[in-house]
């Protein structure tokens, strides 16, 4: 075997362009490397607000593309890119637009639930994850989730799913607990991005439909989100609340989270 020849062939390997890892790492180190003064948070919020305003209102589309992403917690939100196409490996059902006005609203999500890995009981989930599981106290009749998943992605991501009690083949909402060190969720083409707060902490409200890509190591799991997503971060966790309720209702739910007994 000629090692030089082997090395010569290997040198022709075509790699994808190396992403800006340094920028992404710096963004994730920021919360732990700087004092957590409220003035810092305020400055950060103002900076993000300024970027949002300048990107979506003042800067022409071509220049707006320079803004790579907006990051809150570990969730990266990419501004609209007309050229982006839905991932082709998903089933057609998974990409059907699902809105509150559509009669087929969430029933199409059930097959996706069936394909999700890591289903577990709530009690076992609490023993498995390293953070306290919080459940919404609002609406008062919500109860415990119908489906619980823990997915091992370097750290454990928890996904809680509530079915619509009036239509048990439909999903009412889902709540994701995403440890900062473990997870990357990419949303593409959100139609609206709005700043809000959850317990006085900065949050982002987005509306679909848009594809959501879960990276899990070997394959990509894609789906079409129904309704809206509220994203906020607290300590070492990022929370995602998916629902077709209004922003006010979503914030109420987010602010009602209490530890699971």
């Amino acid at each position, binding site marked *: 075997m000629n090692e030089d020849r082997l090395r010569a062939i290997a040198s022709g390997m075509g790699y994808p362009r*190396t992403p800006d890892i*340094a920028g992404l790492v710096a963004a994730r180190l920021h919360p732990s490397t700087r004092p957590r003064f409220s003035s810092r948070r305020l400055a950060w919020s103002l900076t993000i607000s300024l970027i949002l305003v300048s990107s979506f209102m003042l800067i022409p589309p071509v220049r707006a593309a320079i803004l790579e992403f907006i990051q809150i917690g570990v969730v990266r939100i990419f501004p609209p890119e007309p050229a982006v196409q839905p991932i082709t490996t998903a089933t057609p059902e998974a990409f059907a637009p699902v809105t509150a006005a559509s009669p087929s609203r969430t029933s199409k999500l059930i097959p996706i639930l069936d394909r999700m890995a890591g289903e577990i009981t709530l009690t076992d989930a609490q023993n498995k994850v390293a953070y306290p599981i919080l459940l919404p106290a609002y609406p008062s009749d919500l109860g415990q989730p119908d489906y619980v998943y823990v997915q091992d992605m370097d750290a454990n991501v928890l996904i809680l799913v509530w079915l619509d009690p009036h239509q048990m083949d439909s999903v009412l909402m889902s709540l994701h607990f995403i440890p900062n060190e473990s997870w990357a969720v990419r949303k593409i083409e959100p139609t609206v991005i709005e700043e809000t707060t959850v317990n006085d902490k900065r949050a982002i409200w987005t509306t679909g439909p848009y594809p959501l890509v879960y990276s*899990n*190591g*070997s394959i990509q799991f894609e789906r079409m989100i129904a309704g809206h997503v509220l994203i906020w971060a607290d300590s070492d966790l990022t929370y995602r609340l998916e629902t077709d309720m209004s922003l006010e209702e979503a914030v109420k739910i987010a602010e009602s989270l209490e530890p699971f007994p």
Partner: protein
Amino acid sequence: MYFLQIPSPERHGLDEPTLVRHAANGDAAAWEPLVREHQEAVFRLSYLLLGDPDDAEDVAQETFLRAWKHLKRFDPTRPLRPWLLSIASNLASNRRRSAGRYFAALTRAFRGEPIPATIEEKSSQQVQANELWKAVQTLNAHDQQIIYLRFFLDLSVTETAEVLQIAEGTVKSRSSRAIEKLRKIIRQDFPVLLEGLEA
């Protein structure tokens, strides 16, 4: 603007050991040029091991975050790159195993799929390299690691030994065995690569 700041080692004017010492003391600004210096090697090794650019990006990020967290344990007089590649290699292996538990059947279904479209096969050299990559992917994880480090990333025997935390002699013997296995696979399934490899 925050998103467009690109610090470079030159701008800092500090050598790697000094930057490592600063970073180990919590100076994130010293860590950033080091990340930038080594991000390509870490990303490429992750990509070779995982075969997916998004996963490679995740692992590369996690590599630098873990290294940052454990920098105080790192001897700044040693080169940083082998240590980073060692972390990346472990993370990629864990990720592959973790995903395998859940999606083994699906992964099997995807075997033999073409290389992701992000790679443009611009030349016959690239076609050959991609064929070689496919051949290497049929080896076991240990053999893959050593082939990627020695021949794709062109690391020296010494650096490879540091990454894999084995003796240099072991690198040589493992490398020989991996190449031997690779040669058999190429003879059987990748005849296009035979030219020049049989010498």
